[in-house]
C-alpha cells in the first residue's frame, strides 16, 4: 500500500499548497464588511471545467495507483510469472504519444485561431487514439494465442485487468473528443471550442502518463526501481 500512500502524499501536498493561499488563519469574526468595501472575489480565474477535470484526474490517478499497489502486493507472492512484453506494445505507446502530441498541436493552433489546423490536429488525435485501442486489442489477441490467458497466472490477470481499465478510460475520453471534433466542425471560430480542445489535450496527456507508468510496470522496470528504493530504505 506504500504506492498509494506516496500518491496521497502528493495530493496532500497540492491541497496544502492550495490551502496555504486561502487565509486559513484569518479571523472571520472580526472581518464583517460594510456596503462600500465589496468583499474580494476569491474564486479562481481558471475555468471551472478545467478545475473539474483536474479533480477528476486526481480520482483517476488514485484508481490506477491503487491497481498498482495491489499489483505490487500480489507480485510478492509465490505463484507470479511475469508476462512477456510484446513488441507491439512499443508501437502502441508511440501511437498514443502521437495522439497526445496531435491534441497539443490542435490546442496551440486553436489559440492562434487557425481553425483548419485545429481540426486536422483533432482528427489525427482521434484516429491515433482509436489506433491505440485497436493495437491494444491485437496485443491481447497475440498474448491469448501464445497461451497467456486471463486466469492462468496473476501477472496475466493484472495485465488484462489494468490495460482493460486504461482502455476504458481512453474510450470514455474518445466520447468527449468525438463531441469536441464534431463541435469544431460546426464552429466558425476556434474560440468556442478552445476550452474543450484544451480539456481533451489535458486528459490525453494524463492518460499517456498513466500508460507510461503502466508500461514500465509490465516491462519490469518499475520493479527494479522499487527494489532499489527498498534497498535504500533497509
Amino acid at each position: 500500500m506504500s504506492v498509494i500512500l506516496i500518491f496521497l502524499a502528493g495530493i496532500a501536498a497540492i491541497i496544502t499548497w492550495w490551502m496555504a493561499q486561502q487565509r486559513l488563519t484569518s479571523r472571520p469574526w472580526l472581518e464583517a464588511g460594510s456596503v462600500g468595501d465589496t468583499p474580494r472575489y476569491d474564486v479562481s480565474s481558471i475555468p471551472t471545467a478545467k478545475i473539474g477535470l483536474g479533480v477528476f484526474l486526481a480520482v483517476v490517478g488514485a484508481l490506477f495507483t491503487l491497481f498498482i499497489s495491489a499489483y505490487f502486493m500480489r507480485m510478492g507472492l509465490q505463484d507470479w510469472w511475469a508476462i512477456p512484453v510484446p513488441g507491439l506494445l512499443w508501437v502502441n505507446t508511440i501511437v498514443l504519444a502521437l495522439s497526445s502530441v496531435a491534441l497539443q498541436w490542435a490546442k496551440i493552433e486553436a489559440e492562434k485561431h487557425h481553425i483548419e489546423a485545429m481540426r486536422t490536429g483533432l482528427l489525427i488525435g482521434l484516429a491515433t487514439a482509436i489506433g491505440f485501442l485497436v493495437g491494444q486489442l491485437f496485443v491481447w489477441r497475440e498474448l491469448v494465442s501464445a497461451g497467456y490467458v486471463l486466469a492462468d497466472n496473476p501477472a496475466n490477470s493484472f495485465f488484462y485487468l489494468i490495460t482493460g481499465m486504461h482502455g476504458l478510460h481512453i474510450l470514455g475520453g474518445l466520447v468527449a473528443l468525438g463531441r469536441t471534433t464534431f463541435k469544431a466542425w460546426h464552429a466558425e471560430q476556434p474560440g468556442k471550442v478552445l476550452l474543450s480542445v484544451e480539456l481533451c489535450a489535458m486528459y490525453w496527456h494524463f492518460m499517456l502518463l498513466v500508460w507510461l507508468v503502466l508500461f514500465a510496470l509490465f516491462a519490469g522496470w518499475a520493479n527494479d526501481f522499487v527494489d532499489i528504493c527498498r534497498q535504500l530504505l533497509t
Partner: protein
Amino acid sequence: MVNIPSSIDDTVPAAEVEDVELYHPHSWWTTYVFSQDAKVIAIQYSMTALAIGLVALVLSWLMRLQLGFPGYFTFIDAERYYQFITMHGMIMVIYLLTALFLGGFGNYLIPLMLGARDMVFPYANMLSYWLYLLAVLVLVAGFFVPGGPTGAGWTLYPPQAVLSGTPGGQDWGIILMLTSLILFIIGFTMGGLNYVVTVLQGRARGMTLMRMPLTIWGIFTATVMALLAFPALFVASVMMLFDRLLGTSFFMPAIVEMGEQLQHGGGSPILFQHLFWFFGHPEVYIVALPAFGIVSDLISTHARKNIFGYRMMVWAIVIIGALSFIVWAHHMYVSGMNPNFGFFFATTTLIIAVPTAIKVYNWVLTLWRGDIHLTLPMLFALGFIVTFVNGGLTGLFLGNVVVDVPLSDTMFVVAHFHMVMGVAPIMVIFGAIYHWYPKITGRMLNEIMGRIHFWVTFLGAYLIFFPMHYLGLLGAPRRYYELGESAVNPPSAHDLNVFITLMALTVGAAQMLFLFNLIWSLRNGKEAGGNPWRATTLEWQTPTTPPPHGNWGKELPVVYRWAYDYSVPGAPEDFIPQNQPNSNRLSMENAS
C-alpha cells in the same frame, strides 16, 4: 447583467457579479424527474436513501427477533440471518448514510449556503442520482434472485464471500452486490466532482473559505476524502468480480471445497482486506465529518451563540480527514500483522482522538452560557454529542491492539460502531431534517410527534446498545445466528437479549412516527415563513421559500460576514444574516 468584473480585486457594486448560465427545464419530466436542479436531486437522493434505509431497518428487526427469540421464527434460518446482517450493514453505511449526507444534504445545502444558483455541472449531478438509483435497484434485486442476496458480512471478505458455503457466494448475490457497489462509486464520483468544484468555484461574492458555514466544510472535506477512498473499494470490487466470474486468483488462495480442489490458487485475502479498509476507515469519517459540520451549525443557531473556535473547528475537520487515511489497518489487528505495524496504527488511531476531542470541547463551549432553545434540532444535536462521546470512548479501547484482540468479534464492537457511526450520525440526520424541513417545504414538522420521536429514539438507542457492551465483555460473539446454551450465554444474557429486541422494535416503531410526520406536515404543518429559526446562513435569506429554481431571484447574494453572528452586542436583533453589510450596526453603536 450590466457588466462583468474584469479583475478579482475589482470594486464594482456587488450585485454585478458574473452570473452562471442556468439550465431551464421545459417540461414536467425535466422539472421533477430528470431534473438538473440540485434541490430536486437532493430530494430524490434523500427519498431513495430513506426508502432503502427502511429496508435495512426491517432487516435489523428480523435479526433482533432471531437473537431475542431464537427458534420462534422458523423463516429465519442461519443463511437468511447472514443475508440480513450483510444487507443491513451495507445499506446503512453506504446507501443510506453516505448517500443522504453527501447526495442529500450536500446537494441541497452547498449551492444555497454558498449563494450559488446551482451546482457547477448540473448534468453530471443528474446522472449521479440516476446511477445511485440503479445501484440501489441492483442491490435490492439481490432479494429476488435464486439464492438471495450475499451473506458474506458487509466487509465481503474473500475467500468465503465467493464460496458455495456462503449464501449468494456461488449464486447471484455476490455478483449483484459488487456490481451495485461499482455503480454507486461511478455515480458518487459524478456527484462528488460537483460538490468539490462548486465549493471551489461557485461561491458568492464575499463568501471566502473562512466565511463558509461548518456544514459546508464538513461536506466538502468528506467529499474530497470519498473521492480518494472510494476508488479502493472500486478496485477491490472489480478484482473480486474477476475472481468470482472469470476464475482469476487475485484474492483466492488454493482451496479445497467439498473435497474438490478449486481452480483458484495463490491469491491473497489480506490484499482484499487492505483495499477494503483503505476505503472502509475513511468511510467512517466520510459519514462523520458532514455530521460534525451540521451539528456545529445546529448548536450555534439554537444556542444563539457564535460557534466557539471556528478556525480550530475548520482545521480539526481537515486534520481528521487527512489522518483517517493512515489508520485503516486497525480493522485488521486480528488478521495477523507485524507487531510494529500494529503499534504504528494504534498510535495514529489514538492521535485522531485529539482533533476530535477539540471539536467536542468546542461544541460544549458553544453551549456554555448560550441562550439554549430546546427545539427539536437542538435536542438531536445534544443527543449527538452525548452519543458520539460515548461511542468515541469505547473507540479508545478498541484502538489498542491488546484490548482489541479479545474484544474483536464480540458484541462490544457492534455496540461501539453502532453508537459512534450509527446512532450518532443518524441523530444529526434527524436534527438536520427537523432544521431544514421548513426551508424545503415551507412548513414546520409537528412538534409533539417530533418530541416523542426524539425521546424514544434517544433513550431507546441507549437501552439497545449499552447492554450490548456488557454482552461483548461477557464474550458473546458477534455474527452468531444463535448462541444456545454456552458459557458466554447465561440465562441473564438471554434475558438481556430479549430486552434489547423489545427496545429495538420500539425504536423502529418511533421511526414510523417520524416518516408519518414527514408526510403529515407537508399539508398540516405550521407555516414556517422564510427564516423560522432566525438563522444567519444564506439558505434562510432566499427571497421565497421554498427556494425556486435558480434560488436567488434576480440578484445573487453578497456576503459580508461569517456565518455565526448571533447575539452580537448592540445589534437590533440577536442574529445578523451573512448578506447584511456592517453599516447598520455601526450606526447603532455610534448612536448608543
